[in-house]
């Protein structure tokens, strides 16, 4: 017998017949669970690749090249800046909601130089809880039911649930390897098919999300690629959310181009940056959105109705750090460039380690991840069943058997592209030498066990 209708109508019975509530206590508990279900906006958004893999980080015996955060310390002046800020009484209390004045002014200085335009610190900048918070604010402010949002695969995994939570439909387009596999592939070999891209735009397209440098591949979109995207945005009158959290991690011979600086793009682009990635302090969770006032004001509305303001002492410290590095911009000891130089060595080392045992790394032009094709290892995982894509199985096997953690790249693609990407895993190389040494030791003895 279907009891559901009885439970559903129970509240009405209670109201109209004035039953003694206490006699229906068992009924109450079941009623409670019915009404306490999640809202439609978060239906199906509870699962997450990190939930599955970050518990691994707690196990010290595992060499963790999975989740993307440095195990190298942040620059000392940034830590000192925080210690100093915490000592100032009023910096322990609320600051301006849309961004602490010291920070937004520093941002407008640094980015004013980068964009080569006057940035209004109060109207064209919003400080958020990490780059993540900026993505959320942009999505909630500007995307809704009926909209489509184009996402380039592989993508930072949060884009899809955020688009869905805003009620919109994600539309995918994969990056494709343009040349046949050789021993030396880099992220520039992954490109968009421009005709395919154009076909994804229609009158419902509200925005396209781009991530440059890209996580996980490390691709830096070239000026001409960005121009092609810009042309489509202008033609179809769409917004562009440009996730540029890794903007300073650019390796030799490559240039980071901001799509917002292309003609016609400033007025339709939100550019996202991150203090966590800029200063190697992911645990500070500060980021920012930069864009035209008529867009930023809507993100500010979301901010004032979701968390109102970000922590003050952290913002002060980031502001001071930015001002210090602003003076050094273009010089080798500017952290924006010195970190990239340090990481380039680690990047090359990691690529070499992987090649030595026969894997094919995709050498990134930017960012701190590298994806690697594991096909050549010929690892038979049929004993692990058919339910998961190969890369998930490979990573789980590698964690268990080799004590080395990575992230499966299909976590960053839509269902239709799984087959294309399931031979890749993602490794993070912003790790101290001892971590990389340990990884190297595991790789060297790979075939021995």
């Amino acid at each position, binding site marked *: 017998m279907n009891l559901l209708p009885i439970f559903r109508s129970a509240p009405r019975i209670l109201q109209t017949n004035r039953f003694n509530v206490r006699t229906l206590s068992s009924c109450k508990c079941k009623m409670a669970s019915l009404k*306490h279900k999640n809202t439609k906006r*978060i239906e199906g958004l509870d699962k997450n690749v990190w939930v599955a893999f970050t518990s691994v980080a707690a196990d010290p015996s595992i060499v963790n090249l999975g*989740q993307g955060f440095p*195990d190298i310390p942040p620059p000392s002046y940034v*830590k000192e800046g925080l210690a100093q800020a915490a000592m100032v009484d009023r910096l*322990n209390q*609320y600051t301006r909601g849309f961004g602490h004045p010291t920070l937004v002014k520093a941002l407008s200085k640094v980015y004013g130089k980068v964009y080569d335009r006057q940035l209004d610190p109060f109207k064209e900048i919003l400080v958020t809880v990490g780059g993540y*918070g900026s993505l959320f604010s942009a999505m909630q402010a500007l995307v809704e039911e009926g909209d489509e949002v184009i996402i380039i695969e592989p993508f930072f995994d949060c884009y899809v649930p955020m688009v869905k939570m805003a009620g919109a439909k994600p539309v995918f387009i994969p990056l494709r390897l343009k040349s046949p596999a050789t021993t030396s592939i880099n992220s520039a070999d992954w490109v968009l098919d421009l005709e395919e891209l154009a076909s994804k735009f229609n009158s419902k397209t509200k925005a396209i999300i781009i991530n440059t440098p890209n996580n996980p591949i490390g691709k830096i979109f070239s000026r001409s690629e960005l121009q092609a995207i810009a042309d489509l945005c202008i033609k179809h009158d769409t917004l562009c959310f440009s996730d540029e959290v890794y903007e300073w991690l650019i390796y030799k011979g490559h240039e980071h181009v901001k799509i917002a600086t292309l003609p016609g793009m400033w007025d339709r682009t939100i550019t996202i940056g991150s203090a966590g990635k800029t200063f190697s302090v992911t645990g500070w969770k500060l980021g920012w959105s930069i864009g035209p006032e008529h867009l930023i004001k809507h993100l500010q509305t979301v901010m004032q109705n979701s*968390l109102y303001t970000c922590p*003050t002492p952290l913002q002060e410290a980031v502001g001071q750090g930015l001002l210090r590095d602003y003076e050094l911009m273009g010089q080798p000891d500017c952290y924006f460039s010195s970190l990239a130089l340090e990481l380039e060595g680690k990047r090359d080392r990691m690529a070499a380690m992987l090649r030595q045992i026969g894997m094919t790394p995709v050498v990134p032009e930017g960012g701190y991840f590298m994806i690697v094709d594991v096909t050549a290892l010929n690892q038979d995982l049929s004993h692990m069943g058919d339910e998961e894509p190969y890369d998930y199985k490979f990573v789980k096997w590698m964690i268990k058997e080799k004590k080395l953690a990575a992230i499966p790249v299909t976590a960053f693609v839509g269902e239709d592209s799984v087959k294309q990407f399931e031979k890749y895993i993602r490794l993070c190389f912003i790790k101290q030498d001892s971590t990389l040494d340990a990884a190297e030791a595991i790789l060297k003895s790979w075939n021995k066990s």
Partner: protein
Amino acid sequence: MAPPTAVTILSSFAHLQVVPNLYEFISSAQHKRRYCEDVLSTSPISPGKRSLLPGGGALFAGSLAQRSKCVTSLIAGGSKQSRKPAAVKLLENFMWRRTAVIGPLLSNRLAVAGFHEKGIMSRKLHARRIEGIDKNIWVEFTQLAADYKAVNLGQGFPDFPPPSFIQEAFCKALNGGFHMHQYTRAFGHPNLVKILAKFFSRIVGREIDPMEDILVSVGAYQALFCTFQALIDEGDEVIIVEPFFDCYQPMVKMAGGTAIYVPLKPREGCGPALSSADWVLSPEELASKFSPRTKAIVINTPNNPLGKVYQQEELQVIADLCIKHDVICISDEVYEWLTYDGTKHVKIASLPGMWERTVTIGSAGKTFSATGWKVGWAMGSGHILKHLKTVHQNSVYHCATAAQEAVAVGFQREYDLFGTVDSYFLQLPLHLHEKRLRLADCLKSVGLKPILPQGGYFMIADISKLNINLTDPSTKDELYDYRFVKWLIKEKGLATIPVSAFYSPEHREEFQKYIRFCFVKEDSTLQAAEDILRQWSESK
């Protein structure tokens, strides 16, 4: 070059040339109106052109909105082609053809007028969910206080430092190894959730699971946001007790819910309501607000702005209704440690039948006088908290690590010292108790009628007997308390907050005779405020 006119604006909608059905046209028309308002308010178009555009734009948008309204009612039945009455199809055809004809002509003229060159988007920009929630009193009043360098008893934050033990904990945390500066557990730093669970288990009287029953958030504000987003769907009703912390209403609105208000009122027949305890809910009135659509009720105890601390009996009335109607209780208890005169703070989640339906919100900022740290939490049964976690993981994901570590250390210290004279949770209210009385006396002496709060940071005062001549023309259309507060800032250099801001739009006019003072300030600040009030009173 022809100056832009109402007609040239139309061409920015030139892409509307192909409109398959009227429904799309109408909804996009409404969006265009919003777009017009958006761009016209911030457009980089030069002032000369701008003066033409607003009039033109508004005219166009206005007439289109009018037209869209009457046509919308025609097609209210549905948007399916087959179900449209013939009249609508005729109208649709007409409008489609009209746009198609005008479109190409206009797009040329607009292009000539340079409209497109600005790269301005011609489509609707903002999402409907943020309609009507852009205004905010804090932005306005904190700016005003700063502009006039007023003695600030307005916004609710201490102007004295956090206790030294918490500042030391923060310093220790940030020197505590690289992991203090990198991501921690998304739903709450392990050290923090463990001590919160331990601490509050003792108070609530049940075993709280640190991993399942707690979510750490960016301030209590974000905990409230997660709660509404997780639990309130379009069409759900949320009962809000007035006066309320102003963010509840826009948060309910953003979640698509409908706010239903029930006021605290001075108890009848007890003379002048001199204490927050005299402000009560009418049980009958409260019961009448519950309906089959009621999803949640929001209570705030101790209350901001009134300072009321709900007694056990009052919470029991609310609890009974929650259980009867199967409603979730959102209990904002950020001021839980600040109660005076021996008043006890009671957690509604500890009443029978309430743990499984209550989300209790807390704040490290208010607990440790460090509002700028923005560390808060939501606590409740795992089956409800898991939905808040889903919102959290898809909105900010992590909270700052070092601050959480410091708060954990603070709570461990308080756990060990609970109930003793060294406990900050005892010392702070003792410290504030005196300030509260001092401010109340000062307000009385100048003819204001304060309502002594049983708890919290704030005190409201009745300004109706003051008879000030408020002649500032810039505020003439505003409510009396708004006008008075602005006058007090500009003329006397003292900042407060108008209490009607904490009432629903429907009831605001009935409560425009109160202003709110924050007394959690250094003695020197309170002294400065007293001097201003005394001077004013003497000059009358």
